[in-house]
């Protein structure tokens, strides 16, 4: 077994040396394809972080009718308190809202101080507990509150969050589609590389079969060659993606923080990194497997 493994490793190194140029072309192609995929993932991961940061900041503001009765307020407060997902409740009366508004805008426009009445409604401000389903919880409570008497309107930025969520779904599908197409392309390229490697040494492989080599003995080094192509290719691609991440962080972190407080440029998550490495190994293996199987079939007795 040990001699089999050693021989497979030696033959793989020999194959790579003998077909250096084709091998490097193949690695370069894998690198380019996985860099593209990795950059898409990088964009996706960061947009996802942004979305979850916004999700955390989302609050449900319940604006009340001016003529809401005390009983109606009690009913609303009961609903809030009985909802386990609600973390805190604060109440802003009309007067408090107006005072805060004036404090914020008095210096900016005379119109605010000149206005002879208070146009702002009283409101409840609900914060929700940390939960991956936070937005769903907010929506459910909002749907329930819509029907309640004394509620004038609800505000939680639903429309733009929905749009953003839809965009993320689209991005996910897009990345998967691009990944799928790139994978098929890579399998064909690796398959052709190994095929070239086989055909350039066809006499040697034929001789191996004549001398009594098992199919496993012939397959192992070629499969290993495909795997090595995959591993080196994805390693270089991840290196490029990491450099891009460092560059972005170094140059644009300040700008990002000034727009979105507390948001940091993220690198690919562990599961994504592993998915890319495994996908590359799988692609290398399948590419090699296809061409070896084709070669061995061509040697079948007629």
């Amino acid at each position, binding site marked *: 077994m040990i*001699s*089999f493994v050693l*021989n497979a490793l030696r033959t793989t190194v020999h194959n790579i040396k003998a077909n250096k140029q084709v091998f490097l072309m193949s690695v370069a192609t894998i690198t380019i394809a996985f860099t593209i995929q990795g950059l898409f993932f990088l964009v996706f991961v960061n947009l996802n972080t942004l979305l979850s940061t916004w999700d955390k900041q989302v609050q449900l503001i319940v604006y009340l009718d001016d003529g809401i009765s005390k009983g109606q307020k009690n009913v609303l407060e009961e609903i809030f308190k009985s909802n386990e997902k609600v973390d805190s409740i604060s109440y802003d009366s009309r007067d408090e809202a107006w005072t805060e508004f004036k404090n914020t805008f008095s210096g900016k426009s005379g119109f605010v101080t000149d206005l002879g009445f208070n146009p702002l409604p009283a409101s409840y401000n609900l914060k929700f507990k940390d939960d991956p389903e936070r937005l769903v919880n907010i929506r459910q409570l909002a749907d329930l509150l819509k029907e309640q008497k004394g509620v004038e309107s609800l505000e939680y930025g639903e429309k733009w969050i929905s749009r953003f969520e839809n965009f993320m779904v689209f991005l996910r599908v897009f990345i998967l589609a691009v990944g799928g197409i790139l994978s098929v392309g890579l399998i064909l390229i690796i398959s052709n590389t190994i095929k070239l490697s086989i055909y350039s040494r066809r*006499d*040697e492989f034929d*001789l*191996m*079969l*004549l*001398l*009594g*080599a*098992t*199919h496993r*003995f012939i397959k192992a080094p070629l499969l290993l060659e495909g795997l090595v192509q995959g591993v080196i290719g994805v390693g270089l691609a991840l290196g490029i993606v990491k450099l891009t991440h460092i560059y972005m962080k170094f140059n644009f972190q300040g700008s990002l923080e000034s727009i979105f407080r507390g948001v940091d440029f993220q690198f690919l998550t562990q599961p994504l990194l592993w998915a890319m490495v495994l996908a590359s190994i799988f692609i290398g293996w399948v590419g090699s497997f296809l061409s070896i199987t084709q070669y*061995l079939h061509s*040697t*079948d*007795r*007629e």
Partner: protein
Amino acid sequence: MIQAFNLHKSYGGVAPALMDVSFTIQDGEFVFLTGQSGAGKTTLFKILFGWESVDRGQVIVDRINVGKLNESNLYTLRRKIGVVFQDYKLLPKKTVFENVAFAQQIIGADRKTIRFKTWDALKNVGLTTKKDSYPPQLSGGEQQRVAIARALVNDPQLILADEPTGNLDPEVSLEILELFEKMNQQGKTVIMATHSLEMLRARDHRLLILNRGRMVQS
């Protein structure tokens, strides 16, 4: 022992490559297989070591029914046979020693065994002094002796030599023939395909004659 029963093989041309070929070769025999070019000698060899299949008939080599083996089990047959070709089929980028050792690596021998057996095989063909040379640096006769060493190194009981002296001058051809005879004296069954009349006349071995795919003498 090799037993062939009514072998028929056609490549789709007008005349079949082999027609109704039957023969038996006992263990330890030395047999010349002869016939004109295109008579079917190489086809018969290819069938014996499982490189080609037969359309009809059966062939049994050392109790293995060749036709019943599937592609992934053919190695069990091929490891029992040492094959020598007219064009040597040596790997030009490997040294003489590596070429012979290659056959041992393929069957998964350990390093120590490979070294010992390869040296022994080279000694048998008188090529130990050339062990570090590359095939293109050798004469035709020397290259053929390397090919014979490679066929011998796994200690097969059957040697198939397909026109092994076809590219060699008569003197060297005789040396090669003597090598095969030496193997035969060591107990190996040897089938040597040749259409060299000098060679056939020089020795009194059993003769199988193929003519246009038919066995006319067995």
